[in-house]
């Protein structure tokens, strides 16, 4: 990001490849809409491009990036939806305000099952690094070779790391399903 700030804009393409999946999942969890999540992901990076001069030397890029993402999400909700605010439980010390969309959106794609919501919740319980590689491999369907190029590490090492991350995700899912107050039909 420092390189981009200092004029090497091509590095933003690399950053986009690295983080677009995480941003897309971030927005999907909150909007449940595929096209909107893609648009908002683009919007985040357009802001990164336009306001790159404000990134500080000692700044933490992921924190800055997701700060922009939360800002864009909130602005979007303020503009478009009547709000019903529910204070969500703390996720790593942050209070998340969850807005309910009361307007019928014609382009909503599949994504409203409770299991999906639990899966997104489990994903957010992973560390950022683990979440990133799970998303890149299992949601974006990038090959290990592509991931190795983007993340600048060995493919062989990535296979082990992704496996451990998915195993941890499986444990989180199991816990979340057990903690659910009721059993859905057909669930173990």
């Amino acid at each position, binding site marked *: 990001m420092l390189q981009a700030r200092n004029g090497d804009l*091509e590095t933003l393409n690399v950053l986009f490849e690295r983080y677009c999946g995480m941003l*897309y999942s971030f927005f999907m969890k909150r909007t449940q809409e595929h096209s909107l999540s893609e648009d908002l992901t*683009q919007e985040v990076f357009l802001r990164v491009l336009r306001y790159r001069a404000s990134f500080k030397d000692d700044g933490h890029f992921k924190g800055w990036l997701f700060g922009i993402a939360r800002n864009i999400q909130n602005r979007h909700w303020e503009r478009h939806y009547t709000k019903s605010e529910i204070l969500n439980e703390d996720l790593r010390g942050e209070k998340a305000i969850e807005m309910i969309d009361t307007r019928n959106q014609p382009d909503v794609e599949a994504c409203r099952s409770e299991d999906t919501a639990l899966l997104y919740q489990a994903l957010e319980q992973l560390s950022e690094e683990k979440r990133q590689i799970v998303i890149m491999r299992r*949601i974006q369907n990038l090959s290990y070779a592509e991931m190795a190029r983007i993340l600048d590490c060995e493919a062989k090492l990535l296979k082990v790391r*992704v496996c451990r991350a998915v*195993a941890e995700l499986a444990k989180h899912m199991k816990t979340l399903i057990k903690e659910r107050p009721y059993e859905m039909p057909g669930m173990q």
Partner: protein
Amino acid sequence: MKCLECSDQLLAYLEGELSVDERQRIDDHLSQCDSCRSLLDEISKTCQSLDELPKPSETMTKRFSAALSAYKSGQTEGIRLLQDERRKKSWVWSVTRNGYAQAAIIVFAFLIGILVNESTSIKETNGNRFDVIETELASLKEFTALSLLTQTSAVERLRGLEWLSELNIESEQVLEALYDKLNNDPNINVRFAALETLDTYAEKEEVRRKLVQLLETPNLPMIRAELIKLLVRHAEKDSLPILIQISQDANEDETIRELATWSSQVLQKMKNDEI
């Protein structure tokens, strides 16, 4: 094979990423280890759940890359114009370049002084004079903002747009200037900013109508994309014919075609819901 070595390879095993020998070793271990079989089952189910999640389209990276290229082209053009400007050494040019803005600020400050002075004197009998001064101030603000929009520096044009957004001046001249910046400004940042400013005026039907017309004129793909999204946000159903046309135009940018298709479906649904 020990469990730790096996467990680290289970995902690769599921994905078919192992060699024949490696796969055989895992099979042998799994046939004797309940714990690893159970872990394999959990990993498999989790992968199935992940596979069912919506995926970002493959064109997302290309779209951003295109936006970045457009931005860099706009920057290059802006720098070229600035360099042309600096070559002109006439003192008359350097005065008039900022002359309008400077003169406007001096007069503006003078009128502010008058207004402050008036507000501390007799108020009741000066109602009419307040109105006159306010009208003059409004005209001055408009004049200054429009003047900034004609400056050769992109930074100053952006400042002018920022000012217009804050002041929310509704005049024919301002709107025409905004449409011109959106369509013709050499700097992509200025075009984006013009569109953002027009968004604040888009509650007015005539503005939305004009924006629909502008969709028919050529522009950078990212600007057209933002324009389409603006029209959908404002539920402008009169844009349906042009959106359908764009979605069927083989010469149109692929991303814009997809966006126009989605947008026309959204608006059509809104229209049907109203009937």
